[in-house]
């Protein structure tokens, strides 16, 4: 029952904020802030109440079922495991940030803005919780409309172009996935004597011909690769990011891209393990291509938001690489990248929004020397730039390191190439800080430094990124049973069947030797034995 509140609270707050915002914009802001804090607190409470995961119990932490469309075999089936929980927490945290960072930026139609923002967050919560494929698709599409309006109405100069491009990319790829979902649905139904269902757990293990599996997996991969985004279907992202209002960018980079990663982890590999195994090398190459391409493109940008957008493509390449390595190490790494990238990129977009709000430009050639008047802002920017480049002690390092360590067993060559992307990220991240905050103050900017609200936001984000960086175990422990279950479900999955002992994350991080799982520690020279 508790799960439905993750969706209802933001949705209700959005509906209320609309009429309230006409009378008093401030009241609408407080209302939405309260709702998001409540949602986040709910997630935190669920997290804290979770018993020790090593205890032998089902890995589902909570669930909610209600009938919806029995004729079609679709029901309201919400389930939460460690993977969903972490993403729900991320959504809650960045939802709070999104409301806060719009506080002084949005003055026009505040009520309608918050309606869209809250409904997008509600849709995202739904995506992470829905384990009925029809319901999942429902939310998957639903969250796009509010984001479309956020960009098209409150965006910057080329907002309409960016919004339409974003919508068409994601919608068309999503519809292909819907066709794939339907194909899976009919195949399953015919095999099981008319048991037509969209229930994820029951659809797992549907056997199908290799050709069907490839085709259906292809539709899923297309939808999630667009969301992620993977090269070459990434072109909507820089436009959408650049034109979106700050709150839109924060949610887009912080949460929406993670839907792609979540979909790969939750649906693609477990539903089509054999096809995914064959496809893995190609997907990993796409991932590495994304890492390098994003990093190189990031250099070339003059627009602050565009630069951060391309860096997102680079970071999400690590997720793609990690997911398709499909061992415990790489998956845990992908999970941490998801969280750390959400926090650090969210922070960088908030920063970009504040720079633009104060100076009226995002053009790196016109900025410079802002440190003089806004040292606190500069310090925060420095910290998140360092996080982005993978400085040990901050979250991103853990994630990218684990992904590389996990991938190394599968493909040393790709790992080496991908590691090159981390070098490139160091360059653009430092260059970003240098061009905005150091150097001559060509246009004599005099900025107000961070105020209390902004300071508070950054404090929370800094705490989160340091927490992930210094004590990732909290997150890894939550994810572990879910990841293990996903690997079991994919049976002969991408990395599973070859007899390679799974690598224990904890032993690698040296936090605690594994005792009860029977998994052996890392063995050098393990290969995944992929065809």
């Amino acid at each position: 029952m508790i799960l439905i509140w993750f969706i209802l609270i933001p949705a209700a707050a959005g509906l209320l904020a609309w009429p309230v915002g006409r009378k008093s914009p401030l009241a609408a802001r407080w209302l939405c802030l309260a709702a998001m804090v409540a949602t986040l607190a709910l997630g935190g409470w669920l997290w804290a109440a979770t018993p020790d995961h090593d205890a032998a119990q089902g890995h589902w932490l909570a669930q909610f079922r209600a009938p919806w469309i029995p004729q079609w075999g679709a029901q309201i089936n919400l389930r939460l495991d460690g993977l969903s929980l972490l993403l729900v927490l991320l959504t809650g945290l960045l939802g709070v940030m999104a409301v806060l960072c719009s506080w002084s930026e949005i003055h026009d139609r505040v009520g309608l803005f918050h309606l869209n923002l809250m409904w997008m967050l509600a849709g995202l919560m739904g995506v992470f919780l829905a384990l009925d494929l029809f319901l999942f698709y429902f939310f998957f599409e639903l969250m796009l409309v509010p984001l479309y309006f956020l960009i098209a109405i409150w965006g910057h100069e080329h907002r309409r172009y960016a919004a339409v491009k974003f919508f068409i990319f994601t919608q068309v790829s999503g519809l292909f996935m819907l066709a794939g979902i339907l194909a899976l649905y009919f195949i399953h139904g015919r095999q099981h004597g008319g048991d037509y269902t969209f229930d994820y757990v029951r659809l797992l293990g549907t056997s199908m011909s290799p050709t069907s599996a490839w085709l259906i997996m292809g539709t899923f991969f297309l939808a999630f690769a667009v969301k992620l985004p993977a090269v070459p279907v990434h072109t909507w992202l820089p436009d959408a990011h650049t034109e979106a209002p700050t709150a839109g960018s924060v949610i887009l980079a912080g949460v929406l891209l993670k839907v792609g990663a979540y979909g790969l982890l939750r649906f693609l590999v477990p539903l089509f393990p054999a096809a995914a195994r064959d496809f893995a090398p190609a997907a990993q190459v796409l991932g590495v291509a994304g890492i390098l391409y994003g990093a190189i493109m990031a250099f070339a940008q003059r627009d602050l938001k565009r630069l951060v957008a391309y860096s997102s493509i680079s970071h999400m390449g690590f997720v793609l690489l990690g997911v398709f390595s499909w061992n415990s190490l790489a998956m845990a790494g992908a999970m941490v990248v998801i969280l750390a990238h959400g926090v650090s990129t969210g922070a960088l977009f908030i920063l970009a929004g504040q720079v633009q709000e104060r100076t009226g430009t995002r053009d790196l050639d016109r900025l410079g020397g802002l440190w003089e008047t806004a040292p606190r802002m500069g310090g925060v920017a420095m910290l998140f730039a360092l996080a982005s480049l993978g400085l040990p002690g901050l979250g991103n390092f853990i994630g990218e390191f684990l992904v590389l360590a996990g991938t190394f067993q599968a493909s040393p060559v790709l790992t080496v190439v991908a590691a090159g992307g981390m070098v490139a990220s160091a360059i653009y991240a430092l260059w970003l800080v240098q061009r905005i905050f150091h150097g001559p103050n060509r246009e004599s900017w005099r900025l107000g430094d961070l105020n209390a609200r902004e300071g508070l936001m950054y404090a929370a984000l800094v705490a989160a990124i340091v927490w992930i960086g210094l004590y990732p175990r909290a997150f890894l422990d939550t994810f572990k049973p879910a990841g293990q279950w996903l690997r079991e479900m994919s049976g002969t999955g991408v990395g599973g069947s070859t007899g390679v002992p799974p690598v224990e994350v904890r032993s690698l991080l040296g936090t605690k030797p594994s005792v009860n799982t029977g998994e052996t520690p890392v063995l050098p020279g393990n290969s995944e034995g992929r065809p």
Partner: protein
Amino acid sequence: MSWNWTMADAQALLPLMVVSAAAVVVLLVLACCRRAGVAGILPAGETPATRIGAVLTVIALAAALALLPVAGAAAPRSVTFLVIVDGYGLFFAGLLLSACIAVALLGHSYFRQETSAGGEFYVLLLLAAAGAMTLVFSRHFASFFLGLEILSVSLYALAAYNRASLAGLEAGVKYLVLAASSASFLLLGMAFVYAKTGTMDLGRLAQLLNAAPQPALVTVGLLLIMVGVGFKLALVPFHLWTADVYQGAPAAVTAFIATVSKGAMFALLMRYLVGVNFTLQYPLLAVLTAVAVGSMFVGNLLALRQENVKRLLAYSSIAQLGYLLVTLLAAGPGGRELAIRAAGGFLAAYFIATLGAFGVVSLLSSPQREAESFDDYRGLAWRHPVLAGVLAAMLLSLAGIPLTVGFIGKFYVLAAGVNANLAALVAAMVINSGIGLYYYLRLAIALFTPSRAEPPPRVAIHPAGAAVLAVLTVLLVAVGVYPQPLLRLLAAVVAL
């Protein structure tokens, strides 16, 4: 052929009889009121003629709608060799009657300023409704043609209802010439089929089609019939009239042409082609596939740069009918039940969204001035926030976005297509949904953009039209979130 009239036959035909009788009654009542009007005892503004006509029409249509379950008690029943009343026909009749009520109320709001000659609208509307209902119940070439002509002839007059405007006249003449010529193709086709098979019974014909490949003359006859049908459905390549007629006709009439006229024709087509083994009728399969894909692409591509909202909706409706044809092609032996339900669901969704969109256009228009250019809609969110919200919702439904009934319809059609392994058609539909998004969103976002030009005058919203839009919007969202009642209805009645 001997046949005895029974009470059950009367019962089955009641809704159709009510609508037909109402047309005569309204005509007579209006004739009396017109004379009273000449005597000069009328207040200015809304004339009693229009008001009485509207009230009687809505009552008659609502009564017919209410009588459908009564007729359903006697169904399925063949009344003479011309008409069959069954669950399938009753479902579509219900859809058509509901749409007619909406059109009558929208027309009433639209003609509010008209001081004379408002009344004929309702007579023509009732006649057209009777023709449409005959179509969905027909089982014979004769009743097919009769229904079609009653519908078409009423529409000639309705399309040209704004006699004062050139566009209106153009619409009427264009519709007259093209509909008449397409009807002659249809007749020729029927003659060919009859000459070769010796039957005019549609059910018998369907059996023949299912049994064996047919001689060339029958195939040619069927294709000629498809010309007539394709014209009514505005499918490519018989779509050329669509944009001009949609633009020239009063918005309420346009809504009627887009929904009732097409829905009735499609119901007939589906009734007889469903379950046809297309592998035996290869030419028919090839033509229908080409027409479906062509309609999707041509409709959507022509709508892309359209600056006239009525024309945009016209092209969009061409594409929507292309999607609908997928259900027809999916209705092979294995998928017929799903395909029929999908067609019913999709048409219901299409009716709601199309009536809603044209309803907004109609409320903003008057016989003197049609609100049809994009400039009339830019910044509508400030002038009429609720209307803007309604139109945006209708457009999102046409685009098939979740939370709206359009999503349910699109999902149903996709499911039917996937179930029948129509990969190419499904892919065409997905790609076209993407193209369609572009212009639906373009119009939707224009509503929320400040207008550049001088804003058009704010019009007063007539309560009747507002009520129609309120009901449609509630349906749009309610069925979109909880489609169970619609699905149950489809499962119960739409079984052939």
